[in-house]
């Protein structure tokens, strides 16, 4: 258990800068999710914390101790890889015990700790098996078990659920969260899936092209995106971006406005703009209505399935509250 802090952390590969300076202080026991599209530098950032990549400039410290120059093994961390990275020639038991054996832990304690982790992860019956004899979800658990038994100060997760099918992913997401809560270990979790980020994070870091666009609690990031990128990336369906002329009383330097689909209503009275219904997706509890506006852009309205659903091709009015609109300037920043 430890705090982690990054200050001015930058990374370049040759002349290409991939991370342009990240600052964040992570509290003891906090679950931080780093989320962003592929190529935004999120995995590189995690690998720098792990010690698998060198830090070009800036400082990473774990529990107040500078770790830039330390080997991965000396940083008191454990990592779960995207492809699990299990040792294929070892049994589940040996996979989990590997780190402890190298550390010279007494045999009795190794057995006790592996068995404890195995029962926590419901792997008790599989200890003698090889990784290839396990399902994807079980392999995932072994990878987590390997991290748990060493009792590290920090857990690092590099897209651990992206190789699982959708249903298993939801289940494992819950398990990871419960496990982290129970063990109280500080965790850094990298994902490109904004749903994982929203559900797991105490605080999330939204990364875009090597920059942390916003750091904050999930609902705060969702409700108050600081950049156009964050508004578009977090939330499904994403935020609607409309021409500034459609908004209520916009600031002078605004060039675009954003409105969440659930904040838009279809109503003729007091309509901000009008458009043609292209198609409506009924998802059961809610319906997404996609409307083509006169300037060619498309707005998505999310409404309860109980509301009347407009026919395709009809013209409807779209409205929203002034409080729900967010203005962005030419640089994509909130204004």
């Amino acid at each position, binding site marked *: 258990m430890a705090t982690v802090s990054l200050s001015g952390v930058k990374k370049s590969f040759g002349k290409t800068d991939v991370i342009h300076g990240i600052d964040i202080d992570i509290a003891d026991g906090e679950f931080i999710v780093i989320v962003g599209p592929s190529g935004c530098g999120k995995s590189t950032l995690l690998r720098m914390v*792990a*010690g*698998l990549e060198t830090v070009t400039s800036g400082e990473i410290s774990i529990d107040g101790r500078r770790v830039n120059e330390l*080997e*991965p*093994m000396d940083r008191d*961390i*454990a*990592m779960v*890889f*995207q*492809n699990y*990275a*299990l*040792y*294929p*020639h070892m049994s589940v038991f040996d996979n989990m015990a*590997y*780190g402890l054996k*190298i*550390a010279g832990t007494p045999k009795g304690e190794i057995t006790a700790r592996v068995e404890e982790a195995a029962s926590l992860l419901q792997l008790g019956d599989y200890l003698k098996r090889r990784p290839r004899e396990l399902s994807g979800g079980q392999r995932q658990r072994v990878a987590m078990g*390997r991290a748990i038994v*060493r009792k590290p100060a920090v857990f690092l997760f590099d897209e651990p659920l992206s190789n699982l099918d959708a249903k298993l992913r939801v289940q494992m997401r819950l398990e990871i969260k419960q496990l982290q809560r129970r063990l109280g270990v500080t965790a850094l979790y990298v994902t490109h899936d904004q749903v994982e980020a929203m559900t797991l994070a105490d605080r999330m870091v939204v990364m875009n092209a090597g920059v942390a666009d916003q750091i904050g609690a999930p609902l705060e990031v969702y409700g108050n995106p600081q950049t156009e990128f964050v508004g578009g990336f977090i939330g499904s369906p994403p935020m609607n971006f409309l021409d500034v002329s459609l908004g209520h009383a916009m600031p002078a330097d605004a060039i675009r406005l954003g409105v969440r689909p659930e904040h838009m209503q279809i109503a003729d009275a007091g309509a901000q703009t009008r458009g043609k219904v292209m198609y409506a997706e009924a998802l059961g509890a809610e319906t997404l209505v996609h409307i083509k506006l006169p300037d060619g852009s498309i707005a998505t309205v999310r409404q309860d399935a109980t509301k009347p659903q407009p026919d395709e091709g009809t013209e409807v009015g779209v409205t929203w509250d002034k409080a729900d609109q967010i203005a962005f300037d030419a640089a994509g920043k909130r204004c």
Partner: protein
Amino acid sequence: MRSGRIFMEKRVTFKGIWLPLLLVLPQIVITAVFFFYPAGQAIYQSLFIPDPFGLSMQWVGLGNFAFLFSNSYYLASFATTAIFSILVTLVSMGVALYLAVLADRLIKGSGVYRTLLIWPYAVAPAVAGVLWLFMFNTRVGVVTWYLGVLGYDWNHVLNGEEAMGLVVVASAWGRISYNFLFFLAGLQAIPKSVIEAAAIDGARFWTRFRTIVFPMLSPTTFFLLVVNIVYAFFETFGVIHTITSGGPQQSTTILVYKVYADGFVGQDLGSSAAQSVVLLAIVGALTIFQFKFIERRVHY
């Protein structure tokens, strides 16, 4: 279900028997002409003693074999072969693995390094033998001269151990390239994240190599072991023929060389044929042994 159907579609099926037969025919013909026929001839001839002019053959049953196994020179050749093939395999695989591990760590210039290391494989064994013979020639060899400067009198023509060392080095040299390629490919097939996981688990380079890399390389190592032993048994003929001709005092006469020496030089065709049969049996047994007992320890 779906993947199963795709698999079925991918599998080529033939309606008749003639086309598939025709397609495998070239391989069958080659195997028959160059393996089954000579092997059959050897087994047949090993039961006879022909006269020196090849005009008549006398049936001796297992006489050739009985004579061989009471012949101390032949039994000595077994020991020579064992020492020779173990040394060639160990040297060529050990050096190749070492070079492959170094090349695997290299990021820049690995292409040049790899290309240069492959070159010796293109040199035919007999030519390799001549090259090494020239370097170690007792009168004009450059290595011999430098050894002389250091106070060591190299003479593989008289010293059996030096002769053995020379043929081992010459045989292993070209083989290192071949083994290097396979080891490098094997090393590069190991997922990087597994190595990283081990590094995070606290394993330093040598521990990682011993507990993760080497076990994961075992399919490659096993394959090379089989191939190299077969190489050492048969294909090293050219090297031995050019460098030592089996001498001095038969100290480098491995079984395959003795087949040649007794048959073509000594004109004892019956014994030579019997030796071929014994060699055939040994390599067969060795390969079966390797697949039965060593392969069990291999993790694919």
